[in-house]
């Protein structure tokens, strides 16, 4: 964890025991919850989050306030909050840091979100591989309950919230919100058909809000200091700061908090120490593995949703993987294609079979057994998967693979 610059999400992360409630409270923790529960109505909390235009930090970038607004006002059914802590997008590890350093921040954000939407029960769906972090979260829940920040009558008000930590068991697709719900219901992680959307038919068929960890961790600040302050922190239309996970061939891999819209080149070369071992930069995957790759000449770009979409990629989970010039792209392609084939839930034909076929070709390419037409086949398969699958994982596989093959065509064709 590298700490520098203005820190909001990572504020106080240098404190060794920030994860304990006394430390968090001493540094202003749970003040936002107190403010909201005692002086604001749920609608006021919702409006503030809407005004902040807080875009989801999980990968889809959907504005949280608008998502919350989709939950029907009038309903007898219980409502649920599910925090998506599945963090499976390769190259992404920001939620790990947020949860292990400052679990109470997450809980406070959950209190605020639940208050705004009328939720009384919340689950944190955390990937199975984050066992130690799940235990830390459990401890935080216990502390919060003991201090009256969870359970009934929080801060002496009518509002109550139960939080349960639920561990996954190894499946990337469970990071997709409807697959997450299926998994939380004790089933295979098969994404659901949409519509209906989780806001109306979600967990146990009840209205449900699903938000990423980092998204929720932004809420206390927005409530305490207002939407305006949040918006102003960003350098472009996207407000606030973001945690950028930087890894790969850089000298200082780590989690960096920067304003939304910061420069990718600066992030890599100023903050993350530039290329390791004196190598040159060949390519950057800017938003987790599912984000189409950028060439060296394309990295003078702002790290915000709009700019990256315009460049034919996406900000996604802001997982930045830096690739050096000594790395053959056949290796990257093999890992990429193999990943999606391995993680495909298998429900729908284009993804189940298309990803497997692409992976088989990519594997052959890596071992030097290229045949004529291989690259065309991969591109054709990607084009036939894109937009044709039951859930967004089809695109998540097709787009980066197509981009890699297209942009590194010459190199791939020279292998044999």
């Amino acid at each position, binding site marked *: 964890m590298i700490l520098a610059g203005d820190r909001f999400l990572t504020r106080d992360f240098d404190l060794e025991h920030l994860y304990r409630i006394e430390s968090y409270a001493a540094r202003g923790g749970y003040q936002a919850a107190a403010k909201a529960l005692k002086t604001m109505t749920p609608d006021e909390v919702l409006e503030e989050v809407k005004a902040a235009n807080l875009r989801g930090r999980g990968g889809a970038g959907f504005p949280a306030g608008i998502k919350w607004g989709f939950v029907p006002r009038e309903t007898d059914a219980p409502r649920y909050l599910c925090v998506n802590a599945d963090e499976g997008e390769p190259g992404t590890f920001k939620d790990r840091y947020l949860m292990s350093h400052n679990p109470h921040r997450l809980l406070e954000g959950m209190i605020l979100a639940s208050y705004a939407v009328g939720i009384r029960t919340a689950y944190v769906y955390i990937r199975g591989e984050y066992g130690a972090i799940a235990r830390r979260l459990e401890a935080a829940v216990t502390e919060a309950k003991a201090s009256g920040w969870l359970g009934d009558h929080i801060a002496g008000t009518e509002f109550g919230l139960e939080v349960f930590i639920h561990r996954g068991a190894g*499946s990337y697709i469970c990071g997709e919100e409807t697959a997450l719900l299926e998994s939380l219901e004790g089933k*295979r992680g098969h994404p659901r*058909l949409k519509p209906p959307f989780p806001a109306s038919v979600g967990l146990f068929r009840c209205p449900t809000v699903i938000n990423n960890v980092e998204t929720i961790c932004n809420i206390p600040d927005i409530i305490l200091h207002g939407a305006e302050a949040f918006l102003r922190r960003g350098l472009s239309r996207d407000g606030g700061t973001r945690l950028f996970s930087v890894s790969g061939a850089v000298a200082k891999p780590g989690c960096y908090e920067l304003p939304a819209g910061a420069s990718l080149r600066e992030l890599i070369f100023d903050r993350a120490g530039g290329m390791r071992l004196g190598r040159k930069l060949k390519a950057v995957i800017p938003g987790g593995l599912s984000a189409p790759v950028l060439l060296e000449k394309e990295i003078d770009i702002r790290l915000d949703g709009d700019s990256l979409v315009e460049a034919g990629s996406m900000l996604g989970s802001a997982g930045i993987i830096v690739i050096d010039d000594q790395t053959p792209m056949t290796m990257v392609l093999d890992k990429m294609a193999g990943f999606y*084939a*391995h*993680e*495909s*839930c*298998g*429900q*729908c*034909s*284009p993804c*189940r*079979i*298309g*990803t*497997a*076929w692409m992976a*088989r*070709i990519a594997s*052959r390419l890596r071992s030097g057994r290229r*045949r004529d*037409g291989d690259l065309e*086949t991969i591109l054709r398969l990607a084009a*036939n998967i894109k*937009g*044709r*699958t*039951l859930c967004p994982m089809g695109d998540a596989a097709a787009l980066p693979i197509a981009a890699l093959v297209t942009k590194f065509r010459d190199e791939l064709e020279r292998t044999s």
Partner: protein
Amino acid sequence: MVRLVIDDRTVSVEPGTTILEAAEQAGIEIPHLCYHPALPKAGTCRLCAVEIEGQPKLEPSCSTEVREGMVVRTESPRVIEARRSVLELLLTEHAMDCPICDKAGECRLQDYYQAYSLAPGVYAEDKTRREKKVPLGGGLLLDRERCVLCTRCVRFLDSVTGTSELGVFERGIRSEIACFEGRPVDNNYSGCLSEICPVGAITDADFRFRTRSWFLEAKETICPLCGRGCRIVLERHPGFPRLPGTAKVLRVRSRPDDLVNGHWICNVGRYGYGYLEQERCRDIAGPLAKRLGLKTWDDVVAHLAARLRALRLKGRQAHMAVVVSDWLTTEELFLAGAVFQRDLEIGRCHVVGPRDDSPDGMLLTAERSPNRAGAKALGFGLEEPTLEDLARDAEMLMVFGPFLGEKFRPDEIGAALAGVKTKVLFTPRDNGLGRFFDLVVPTVWPAEKDGTFTNCQGLTRAFSAAFAPPSSAVEEWRLLAALGRAVGRNPHFYTPLRCAGDVRRAMP
């Protein structure tokens, strides 16, 4: 109602209808594998994707509800290309077993490939080898190289039978259909799985390798094996001269009927067709036939009519007994009532059918006859007679149907009926009952005649002969009508047209 345009046709449907269903109502079939009208939607095969004007992506028609003013294209170049792509992908994982696969000729994959693709395969990687003969239970085998993971089988067992024996194991390309060891498919509707499997992945031991689907002639009828009367299709191998071998029914399939059986039939009806060809009564037999030289059923009718007239003239009505069965059509029961009860004044008229058995809580009823309700509606008493009741002071006993032989033991029957002077049996089945009778006349099963049944729900439905009976057998209604004319009291009454009208009037 919602109005939309599909392929330039304007359709008007109920709100909540899916595009695929709306298209079907307009006579447009959209290819599909995982969709089934009676199962919960999956939306996973992606074959049914269509183009909707104004929407950037193709949408699955099986799970997209219609909206007012929607404009849908089901055969645009984009849609065809998407369809071909799904077919191509499925075929890379699919075993090219057509020459040895039961489903050939009635396989959706074949049909769609032919209609929309015919593209040569370009897949050049290793083809995944999978198990080809996984026993699932109920005589069903799963070939995992043919399975397209449409999950119809899983959804059927989850939502229709509620027995959930099958599931999908593993994930991604390694996904496979399987059951838990020691808990195979075991329910009265397991036969439906082979029928709903859109390809040849699930095959049925009852049908495996017996014939090619295109040799079968499909004939609709109603299943007579219980009181439900499900609509079925008998699929019959035509035999000589079209093909070598004797004609026989080789398979029974369900026929959709919203009011009675939905899309399903139970295993009793599906696998119980053997009675159509086995143990058939072939010839007029019995000592009486031999003695009097009765060769045809006309001979029988002439002789019987004379004997019955004589007995009535002598006032011996009380010494005559008749047994009909609730496997007879309503028309036949009506005719029997008219001839025996009304014209011949025989009061002792009983109904004997097969033994009741356990109902299955779904379609299969306890009563194992198709027309008990019809018999009841015509006023027949349904209390079962004892052999004593039949034999007491009886000079003449006429029995329709083989079911006495199933209700009573041979020694009992022999002993009880020994004292009855003349015993005539009209039956399609030779189950040994005939040896206690003086005259045995071969008749037909419901599949071999026209008629109506009234089922346990009170629904009356007509059916026509699915195929001709054995040449020596006579339909009970034809025999009864001739007998009625020959007995002479109301000869003009026994024409088919008059009969039909009177039957309608007789039913409440």
